[in-house]
């Protein structure tokens, strides 16, 4: 009885997988194709990396140009940051508190042609959303140093920010003569606490930050900076501070407005990447100190003219996917061509199981191709791009592992989707056509390909959101931050979906294709 039932059930999934694997590995052409796909992916990654150059010229002659990129500092967390600002500071040894009232925050925005270097000669009044001015504590004014700052901003009210990525809101509104904002930073050991107030008597604590390894003597002072606007125009902010008091915890020697505050401009040298509007400056007028500055203290997003470690992969992936599309189609349709499908279905009567086994085998082959090839190509192409003078956004090994696994999954899912289409149609060419149209043609509109602010417009965004091409989001490595107002669009190198979301969209298509194939295979005469 049980033997009969077992016989009716047919062999288990493991046997079905083993059968399909045997069919796959005994066609020498397919194995050669897989090796070829790996080789092509690496080769085209190299070509793509090789074609990317960044350089600068020191003179008009042909020998005056060298490979190299502007300097992009790394923040305390290892991420790329923008760190350009004007600071009027004094040393503070040990614990202490700095307090100041900010009575105005105004700015200028570059109004000249977008292809010219911004200068103060042609500006209009206005602030960027993240123009900022306030109090700052930092171990040094070196770019990328740790810091904590409480500040008024152009459109986001009072904020407490530290180490470029952390942000907590305080009072809302822009400071003005009628609605001045009081700010305070307190240092106790490694802990910095931020406060704000409307009147200087009732204080509200915004939050605190631990800056580990803070030296005993730090720089403390008043800063101003102003980032590029959403439209990409450089800006410059000017803030007026009064009621300034820097008080060490020992109690003696409070420094006020008449003390000597040292002015420092950070991050606006000729080799620094951030586009600043004019030079910053610090002036004293009556009981006020007025600080003007341009730049940003935030994560560096695209616009640093930078590449990511995955930037060289797109084209090679597309080539490898064409090979896998052909192999997956043949894996599905050659059974019909040779009549082997009758034997297969006789041996494994549960037809869904056959399909699942086939999907497993071709999926594993696709994953191996995508993962192995990108594991070779990513570090190799990164070397080539660096040697060509390109800046590559810093990544962690975990992120690289994510990209490699993502490439494997992308190729695997593409192969499984095409296998489903091939099983439904039983014939090769239309399945290949569908695979190429769905997975290869979107690369023509990929991020950065069309270039320019309008590039990769609405159609491309749509393509990479709701079609299988969404799976290419696994290549997305460009950093984004809500602390930087920037068009995170395809034209600027940003995929519309997060990597996992893009893979999920692709998975839905694969599920649809395999599900339809299972239904058709189950109902149809083989």
């Amino acid at each position, binding site marked *: 009885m049980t033997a009969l039932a077992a016989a009716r059930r047919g062999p288990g999934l493991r046997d079905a997988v083993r059968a399909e694997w045997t069919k796959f590995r005994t066609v020498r052409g397919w194995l050669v194709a897989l090796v070829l796909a790996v080789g092509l992916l690496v080769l085209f990654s190299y070509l793509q990396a090789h*074609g990317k150059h960044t350089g600068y010229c020191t003179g008009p002659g042909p020998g005056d140009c060298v490979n190299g990129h502007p300097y992009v500092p790394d923040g305390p967390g290892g991420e790329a940051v923008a760190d350009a600002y004007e600071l009027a500071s004094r040393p503070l040894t040990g614990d202490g508190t700095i307090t100041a009232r900010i009575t105005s925050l105004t700015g200028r925005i570059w109004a000249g042609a977008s292809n010219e270097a911004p200068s103060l000669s042609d500006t209009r009044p206005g602030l960027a959303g993240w123009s900022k001015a306030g109090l700052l504590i930092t171990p040094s004014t070196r770019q990328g140093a740790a810091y904590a700052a409480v500040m008024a901003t152009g459109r986001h009210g009072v904020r407490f920010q530290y180490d470029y990525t952390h942000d907590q809101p305080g009072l809302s509104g822009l400071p003005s003569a009628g609605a001045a904002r009081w700010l305070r930073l307190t240092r106790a050991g490694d802990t910095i606490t931020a406060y704000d107030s409307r009147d200087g008597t009732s204080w509200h604590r915004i939050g605190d930050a631990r800056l580990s390894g803070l030296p005993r003597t730090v720089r403390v002072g008043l800063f101003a900076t102003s980032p590029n606007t959403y439209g990409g125009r450089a800006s410059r902010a000017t803030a007026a501070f009064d009621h300034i008091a820097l008080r060490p915890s020992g109690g003696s020697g409070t420094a006020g407005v008449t003390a000597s505050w040292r002015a420092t401009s950070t991050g606006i040298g000729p080799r620094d990447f951030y586009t600043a509007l004019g030079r910053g400056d610090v002036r004293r007028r009556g009981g006020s100190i007025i600080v003007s500055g341009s730049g940003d203290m935030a994560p560096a997003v695209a616009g640093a003219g930078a590449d990511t470690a995955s930037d060289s992969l797109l084209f090679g992936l597309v080539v490898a996917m*064409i090979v896998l599309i052909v192999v997956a189609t043949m894996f599905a349709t050659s059974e019909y061509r040779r009549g082997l499908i009758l034997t297969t279905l006789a041996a494994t009567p549960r037809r869904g199981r056959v399909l699942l086994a086939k999907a497993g085998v071709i999926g594993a082959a696709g994953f191996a191709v995508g993962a192995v090839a990108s594991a070779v190509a990513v570090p190799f192409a990164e070397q080539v791009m660096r040697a060509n003078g390109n800046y590559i956004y810093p990544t962690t090994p975990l992120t690289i592992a994510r990209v490699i696994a993502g490439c494997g999954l992308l190729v695997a899912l593409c192969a499984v989707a095409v296998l489903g289409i091939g099983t439904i149609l039983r014939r090769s*060419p239309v399945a290949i056509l569908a695979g190429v149209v769905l997975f290869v043609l979107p*690369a023509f509109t990929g991020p950065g390909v069309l270039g320019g602010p309008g590039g990769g417009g609405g*159609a491309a965004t749509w393509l990479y959101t709701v079609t299988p091409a969404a799976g290419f989001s696994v290549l997305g490595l460009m950093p984004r931050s809500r602390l930087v107002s920037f068009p995170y669009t395809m034209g600027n190198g940003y995929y519309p979906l997060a990597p996992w979301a893009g893979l999920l969209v692709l998975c839905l298509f694969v599920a649809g294709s395999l599900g339809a194939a299972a239904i058709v295979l189950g109902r149809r005469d083989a």
Partner: protein
Amino acid sequence: MSAAVAAEWTKLRTLGEMWWLAAGVIAVAIAASAGMLATTHVSPGAPGPGPDPTKLALTGIDLAQAVVAVIAVLAVTEEYGTGMIRVSLAAIPRREAILAAKALTIAVLTLAVAVPAVAGCLAAGRLLLPGAGIDPAQGDPLVTLGAGATMRAALGTVLYLALIALLSVGLGAIVRDTAVAAGTVLGLLYLPPLLALLLTGPWKRHLEQIAPMTAGLAIETTRHLGASPDTPWVGLGVLAAWAAGALVGGGVVLRVRDA
């Protein structure tokens, strides 16, 4: 020869998905053109050279050529898949005649499909381009067959599709397997322009001058002819050379090889 053509025509028209695919060429071309134009918007006074309305209207051809290629590949390789080729060769021992008859029937079928496809794309351009901000008010010409350059682009694009079909027939005869042949043709068409996106300078230009798709599509250009990789007819000539090379190669291997 007329018997060979009649035989090939019978085989072609009775191929399972042939009429679906033929209708697909027209539908894909017009739908892709219309879809692209409906989502395009050019703001007035945008920098750079003005758009080429005829070339924009014919965008759908970039996609429809894939269907043409698949039809042509199928017409050749399915004979190998089913073993029919042995019967064909027994019936008509002059092997080049079979390939020539195949090429002729597929070219005629492609021409017949390409005319409504190109006409539909141009009509979509005429209707949709003004809505995309490309109209006489901005100094851009309307798409009209009355203009000599547009007429040349329209006729040339019909010929382009026929040449793509001939190229596919030749490659199909060389490769013989449907899947590999389809992959090869589509790769040959779409990979060079992708690669060209990554290159700069003379390499990019040379690649675009000799690749079948980028060279052949120069025939669509009606404005800024200097920016195109080849002059229109030279470009189409490059594609014709590809097609001729593939057909000759296919003829030679068909003659010398065991079927």
